[in-house]
């Protein structure tokens, strides 16, 4: 009696089509890489720093000239010239010796820099850092013990954006229908 029930169940399991076999999945895994556009899942919205990979210049690397990066960049070696990583994060490692102008969305400094630094979003100067040059940024964090000689110019793009939004909101008061449409589009309304 017991053996008969088992025989009845076995064919039912084989008929289930929902579970793909392991061998059918394996080729897809091999073809899929981190940067492959042929991903099957729905991609989540990515921030600029996550949209690309990240590059690194090791502590035994010396570069003279211009560096343009379209991904996050870490420098731990010697650089002389200019470094630009628009929309991305630039990290100056503890062993880095940089004589260059730096431009990036966010800059983290642990090493030594001689040159002007321009970060559209934020500059983070760690306690072991040494920076001689002028800073232009929206936000700055500087740890006690960091050496800095130069000027700091805080420019606030958010304030400018808010002012523009304020102007748009004033215009919307005169036209309620337009204000409703703006609000639905995600613009904050008061």
């Amino acid at each position, binding site marked *: 009696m017991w053996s008969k029930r088992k025989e009845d169940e076995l064919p039912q399991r084989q008929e289930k089509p929902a579970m793909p076999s392991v061998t059918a999945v394996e080729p897809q895994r091999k073809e899929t890489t981190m940067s492959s556009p042929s991903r099957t899942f729905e991609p989540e919205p990515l921030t600029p720093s996550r949209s690309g990979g990240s590059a690194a210049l090791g502590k035994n690397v010396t570069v003279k000239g211009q560096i343009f990066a379209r991904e996050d960049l870490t420098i731990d070696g010697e650089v002389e010239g200019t470094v630009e990583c628009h929309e991305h994060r630039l990290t100056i490692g503890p062993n880095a010796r940089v004589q260059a102008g730096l431009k990036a969305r966010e800059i983290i400094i642990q090493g030594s820099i001689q040159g002007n630094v321009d970060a559209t979003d934020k500059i983070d*100067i760690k306690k072991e850092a040494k920076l001689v040059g002028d800073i232009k940024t929206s936000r*700055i*964090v*500087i*740890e*006690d*013990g*960091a*050496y*800095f*000689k*130069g*000027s*700091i*110019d*805080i420019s606030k793009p958010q304030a400018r954006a808010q002012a523009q939004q304020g102007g748009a909101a004033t215009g919307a008061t005169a036209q309620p229908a337009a204000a409703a449409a703006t609000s639905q589009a995600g613009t904050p309304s008061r």
Partner: protein
Amino acid sequence: MKFAVPRGTFVKSASSDHAPAIARHSSGFDQFYATLKGTEGLSILDLSGASQANISFITEAGHRISSDDLVGAMLQSFGDDFGESQTDGKAARFLEQALTFPAETFDGALVWDAFQFLAPPLIDQTVERLLRVMRPGGLILAFFNADEKMKKIPLYSYRIQDSKTLLQIPRGMPQRVQNFNNRTIEKLFEDASSVKFFLTRDHLREVLVRR
């Protein structure tokens, strides 16, 4: 930007494990800051090195801040013993590093207590250089220890808490180089248009100099 530290109280120092930081009232800084109010985009020089508190306070008021560590340059040039080692060669090395800004760059300068550790003639050269980088009418805030009995005087880093309160962070106890009374300070800034004194209860003479 305000930090809730009661005046005259001791708080743990961020940079020194040995001595506590001290929050104190400063009439000199209060007057210095009063001149900044109502205007934006002024250039302020902070000679106590870069600190988050000072940068935030000045930039949130709409001004531009420049940092230079005058005491750090002194330590680098003269070592720990400021007074006895300010020889010609080391003084020249110090002047190469200190206050190397273009003329008439700043509307205000926070010197704090750095000048009192410079011996003549270096202090005169440094003051001359500071006045050169100040714009006409610019204000300088400097502190001098008024207790003439002390052979060693405390050296501090100054962090702005609010417009009336400063946080003093101990940085060492160097040898006094010379005594500064009102007369010597007036002579030191004889090329300035005005010198105003604030004598405090903790033997610190606060001086506001207008170029």
